[in-house]
């Protein structure tokens, strides 16, 4: 099956020794959790996940042209 293209964005300290933004070609069916694991990010440290500016979960499969944003647990106000 043809691979799909997604954009992955990292924030705060998740960027350290990784990247800020990356275009990735992935197999269809790859989930958000698969991407997090492939980046060697501890799922426990993940606070917020968004696809195309909507909150999502580790279990959600990515689709063509999705923008996935991965944030650690953060706060402010």
């Amino acid at each position: 099956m043809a691979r799909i293209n997604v954009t992955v964005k990292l924030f705060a300290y998740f960027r350290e020794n990784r990247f800020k933004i990356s275009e990735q070609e992935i197999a269809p069916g790859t989930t958000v959790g698969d991407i997090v694991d492939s980046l060697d990010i501890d799922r426990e440290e993940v606070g917020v996940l968004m696809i195309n500016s909507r909150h999502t979960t580790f279990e959600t499969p990515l689709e063509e042209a999705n923008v996935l944003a991965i944030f650690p647990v953060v706060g402010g106000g």
Partner: protein
Amino acid sequence: MAEKIYRVNMTDLTSSIEDVPAAWAAHGGRGLTSTIVAAEVIPTCHPLGPNNKLVLAPGLLSGTVAANSGRLSIGAKSPLTGTIKESNAGGTAAQLFARTGVKAMIIEGQPKEDKWYSIAITPDEITITEETELIGRGNFATIEAVEARSEEKRAILTIGPAGEMRMASANVSVKDPDGGLRSNGRGGLGAVMGSKKIKFITVDPKGGKVEIANPDGFREANKTFAKALVDHPVSQALGQYGTNVLVNIVNESGGLPTKNFTLGQFDGHDAISGETMADTITQRGGKIKHNCHPGCVIQCSQVYNDADGNKLTSGFEYESIWAMGADCCVDNLDHIAEADRIMDDIGVDTIETSVAMAVAMEAGVLEFGDGAGVCRILKEEVGKGTSLGRIIGNGTGSVGKAFGMTRVPVVKNQAIPAYDPRAIKGIGITYATSTQGADHTMGYTIATNILNVGGKLDPLTKEGQVELSRNLQIATAAIDSTGMCLFIAFAALDDEKCLPALIDLINARFDLSLTGDDVVNLGKHILKTEREFNMKAGFTSIDDRLPEFFYTEPLPPHNVVFDFSDEEINTFWDF
């Protein structure tokens, strides 16, 4: 040290130190300022006239070694909103007020002569002194001069030129441990202090200490409490990136109000983000972490240097950076920092003033994105009190009226802060129903709508938002009474040991046996007291609404409007 009420009458320049009435004994911080304002201020009075009162109160735990207990509440009838107002800030004043034995300080009346004064508080004495030298000075010069007059370690509260000119966005500034400023920012309390002709207040406890009824229990509870705070990941992120870590996440969610609330995302977000700011601070030799008051274990404040390595500003907050940045489309962090410093110096609320500036930009006073122009207008117009400066200094609503604008983001005439209520619906309920005008801190649904703290609730659906806002507003009113920084709430929402430890601290401090239910009931009582004052001042449920454009102009990228019916909003008060 026994706690007393320190009362100052500015009409006849007299003062008294009074016993605490039984009805006020269990209150502190916001609960106490709102109780006193409701009891003693005529709700229909003019906020800048002699019948308004400025009430200052440390929290129930202020002055103790309890972590993060250094918030000072100031209350009055607000000249900006016409409602009851409580605004709290860090700095050293809450702790030193408490150690002086001040349960609350009440300033009433108004001098008949056109003279300015300072007030000095010690445990045994209130001294009112005429002040001539520092009138017209900015906050930084005032603090420097007042510090130079005494070797004692005193708290200093000041107003800048904006407060002297009674602008409705004027704040009360509190010195932090390093001579920086923290601000009781919202609602124009600096104008109330200015209307009473008080340039500054000093507080010197003369070595006084707060008595603890059960010191061992207190120590134990504080250990558990501080550990809950330190261990929570949000506390750690706040230390590293400050509150400005929120720019990117709120932008990503599509709820970052941009270009006077016409867009939900800002192209320049990366340049003004917490990540960029942390890198810049490190490169320029500033401080990533900084205490706004001794005993804070989170340290969300920071020192931001200019390109030459000199301190430009501190306590550089997300809301200020959002307002001057995204809302005014300024993507230059140095311009925003410069504007932040000028606003601190002239003594205006950074949220109110910056949102006002964005409305002025839409009105054509200056171009969106003109950071240098913003700094010039702040210094030359607002700071000097020109006609334009007074229009801006009187807030967002004032600019909207003066220029005939319809997109004016205020509730009860107070500027809406850094989260768009169309894309983050829970916070819209807080803005609408807050007893004090639009204020994110009154019930911070962002935690649950965006940050997944204290559970998860989709920001774009209506379901559950009223209840979320209600629960948070009740809890916040209680926390605001303890002197605790609101940032303890992240740990309190997630760590089951945190809130019981906080209640244990209060019980050990006063020899009480409060339960969680008592704390919830306290929060409800405070909200109802505040609302009752507002109703007597002429407010109705019709005032609990957002401006029309939020209902009619869809916000990109989600293209959503605020779609709660009046009836749905009104259910907020069903408790």
